[in-house]
């Protein structure tokens, strides 16, 4: 039971229930047919407090009377307007009401800091979002296909021979063609390889044998001879290493989930019928995957 009390979802359901109850009452009270408006002492206090908040002093008796009169005015018009359905077609009112609901949900989600257990579970459930990337230490020699033309393959073979000679004294940096790619990358994450060399190259790099020159490895730029010195596999980090990111992501996910869950719970109370969509609408959805 104690655990249950701490569950945000539980808060949620309680709050939801309260909201529905409140909403039901409100709905009843706006029936203009009831023809009854009660200005409670509590309401008057509210008006007084709101005034004080704005003007930094309590209202005079005359002002308070005006506030009450204005409130009655507002109440009557609100009830009549709602009875006439004036709120229903108003995009601003509808959006505002939706936002109010979302604020309630978001506030609730923000109230409780995720517990250690929750963070650990989140990390375990979303390993890919926090995974420490594979890292590579490698060297590469680039051959410009356009410049070398038909000699490309021949040149590649010759360079590989030179580079793989057991007593090779050749500095690999002096071979190949000019580029803006790093000749030598030490302990770089896979995403960095990919941003420099592109996806195609990175996919191949992951499979190259170590400690020898390999080739050809292709990229959008041409071909490369590659020597992989070290390859660290990716791993799931300890919570302590990525705590800050997990807190951020966990809170964000919870906000989304709870919003969605809240909506889904409400949705259960409705039967939704979607009329046959027009042809253009279908295209719009299909076209932008």
């Amino acid at each position, binding site marked *: 039971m104690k655990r249950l009390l701490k569950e945000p979802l539980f808060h949620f359901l309680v709050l939801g229930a309260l909201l529905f109850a409140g909403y039901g009452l409100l709905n009843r009270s706006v029936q203009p047919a009831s023809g009854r408006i009660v200005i409670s002492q509590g309401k008057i206090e509210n008006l007084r407090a709101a005034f004080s*908040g*704005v003007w930094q002093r309590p209202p005079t008796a005359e002002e308070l009377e005006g506030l009450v009169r204005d409130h009655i005015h507002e109440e009557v018009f609100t009830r009549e307007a709602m009875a006439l359905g004036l709120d229903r077609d*108003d*995009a*601003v*009112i509808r959006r*505002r009401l939706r*936002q109010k609901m979302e*604020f309630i949900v978001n506030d609730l989600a923000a109230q409780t800091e995720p517990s250690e257990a929750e963070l650990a579970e989140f990390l375990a459930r979303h390993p890919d979002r926090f995974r420490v990337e594979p890292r590579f230490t490698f060297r590469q020699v680039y051959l*410009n296909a*356009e410049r070398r033309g038909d000699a490309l*393959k*021949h040149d*590649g*073979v*010759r*360079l*590989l*021979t*030179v580079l*793989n000679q057991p007593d090779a004294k*050749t*500095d690999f*940096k*002096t*071979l190949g*063609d*000019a*580029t*803006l*790619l*790093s*000749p030598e990358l030490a302990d770089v994450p896979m*995403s960095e390889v990919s*941003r*420099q*060399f*592109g*996806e195609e190259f990175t*996919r*191949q790099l992951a*499979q*190259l*044998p170590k400690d*020898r020159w*390999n*080739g*050809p*490895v*292709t*990229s*959008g*730029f*041409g071909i490369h001879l590659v020597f992989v010195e070290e390859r660290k596999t990716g791993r799931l980090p300890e919570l302590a290493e990525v705590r800050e990111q997990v807190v*951020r992501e966990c809170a964000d996910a919870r906000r989304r989930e709870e919003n969605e869950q809240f909506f889904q719970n409400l949705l259960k109370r409705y039967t939704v019928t979607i009329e046959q969509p027009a042809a*253009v609408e279908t*295209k*719009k959805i299909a*076209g*932008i995957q």
Partner: protein
Amino acid sequence: MQRNTRRLNAALAAIGFVLVTGGFSHFAAAQDVPPTQAELKEIEQKKPDYSPYPDQHFPNRVFWGDTHCHTRLSFDDGLMGTNLGPEEAYRFARGEEVMSNSGQRARLSRPLDFLVVSDHAEYLGLADLLNNADPDLLSTEVGKSWYDKMKKGGPEGTQVALEVFLSIGKRQELYKSERISRSVWEYVTGIASKYNEPGKFTAFNGFEWTSTPSGDNLHRVVIFRDGPDRVNQVLPISAFDSENPEDLWKYLATYEEKTGGQILAIPHNPNTSNGRMFALADFMGNPLTRAYAEKRARWEPVMEVTQTKGDSETHPFLSPNDEFANFERWDFGNFANPVVPKKQEMLQFEYARSALKLGLQLDAKLGVNPFKYGMIGSTDTHTGMSSFDEDNFFGKVPSSEPSPERWSEAFFMKADKTPAASGWMLQAAGIAGVWARENTRASLFDAIKRKEVYASTGPRITVRLFAGWDFQADEVEAPNFAAQGYARGVPMGGDLKSAPAGKAPTFLVRAMRDPEGGNLDRVQIIKGWLDAKNEVQERIYDVAVSGGRKIDADGRCKTPVGNTVDVPNATYKNTIGTPLLTAYWKDPEFDAGQRAFYYVRVIQIPTPRWTAYDQKRYGIKMADYVPMTVTDRAYTSPVWYTPGK
């Protein structure tokens, strides 16, 4: 035959050929024999460096980012349908998926390295304050009235947006509260701290100062080098405080004095300033002075030259001999309502190349160049989503997010009530490339400050430029290209001074296409100079072109690269152009007594424009005047030459 096979096998064994993954051609397929020792000796080898650590300190990679991104915290966005806030903006820039303002799933093809959320300082966070019924806002008379109108909705709700826009236009600040500004500002800097991850992603603190006198765009994006400890000591300056850029510079100076931090400003893409961004007079109409020039050069190291609202490198009227000049033009006028139409005489005071030329003239006159700008591109998106790829363009405002109608949407009105600009004119651009060593606020800020940055209209083209007095042609191919470039020359954004007797500037350029993008057509050096008659001149030199095309004696290649774009299918092929271009160039007409600047323009092959992707994906047909291909490009910051200093 048998002998050949045996030799081939032997060759394979000797070489120890490693088969990588399948699917592409192997050297093994080549009819090669193992090279002889004599042949091996002939293999082209360049002179190695003596020091094994020559590249320890200089910038070694390009970081990509957007310095100009608005979210719902900007008054115009929050009241006009942008739901995405700074949090979503950072998430999107970091490569995560977000739900767009129009409810579409959106994600960048590749993450950015940095982002400046640069919301308008004027009424910063207004929509959030109204939605949250912020007690401080509601304690102001106007805040209360806006809130009430919003609550009432309908035409009264719309009235709020109109009142806000009008008051911005008239520069009547309808509420001013330090408490409100502080709470919003601390929220903004707090989100930046949350997403700033040194080494991985840089979230800069910043804002936009929105000076728009009579509709002429003089906006500046302000960027801080620092974190909340310093940045929270101040509040953003707004155009309500002053529309005069000199007051902005004063604010920047005060920030540095007060906090010991660092700050800079980037002028907005100038093409809608109606000749005011680079006017030869100050805000009050007085002739420019040396003091003005010093301040401008001190606080504004770079300018934005390309973004969603068009490209401002140059204009066909200003550069009639530049066949690439007629590019993504927005030259209808300014932002006034109705717009004040553009006049030809305004153009020279609002395009980047011309401003660089005017700068030389002013330098000669005042002793300081006020327009000594490096160049960057950015988006100026008002959706919270920095998007600049042709095939993944999420527009400029929520209404220009992907839809079959967005191309025909009207922006800005002329006096005759016809639209001045339309949706199709939006450019899927731009992006800022920064040469640095680390992805941190300090490292990137310092690079912007020294102008070692460049603009791209979208593709992540890598370009590197060095200028010096004695580079040799073969050095551009040398493995120690960058080390020598820094040791004996200056990179983009740098200065050459007082030429040694008989020498002319020499340049080394390397350009590489986007790893996932279109090939390159050509690399150009664009020179501007101040001649003996004190008149400004410009000239374009093609310094490297693809496919063995000829560069004529006049320095131009007149053969176009061609076009592989299939418009109906929105595809292209990299069968033309080349992935990599290198160039060595020596100025053939150098005069050591004349001021000059040189910048590099890299031209990509034509690819489908975002309009072509829309046409294909929605199965629609746009009007004939809508362009369907685009020639994307990159502009580097210039290198300047100044005689006798």
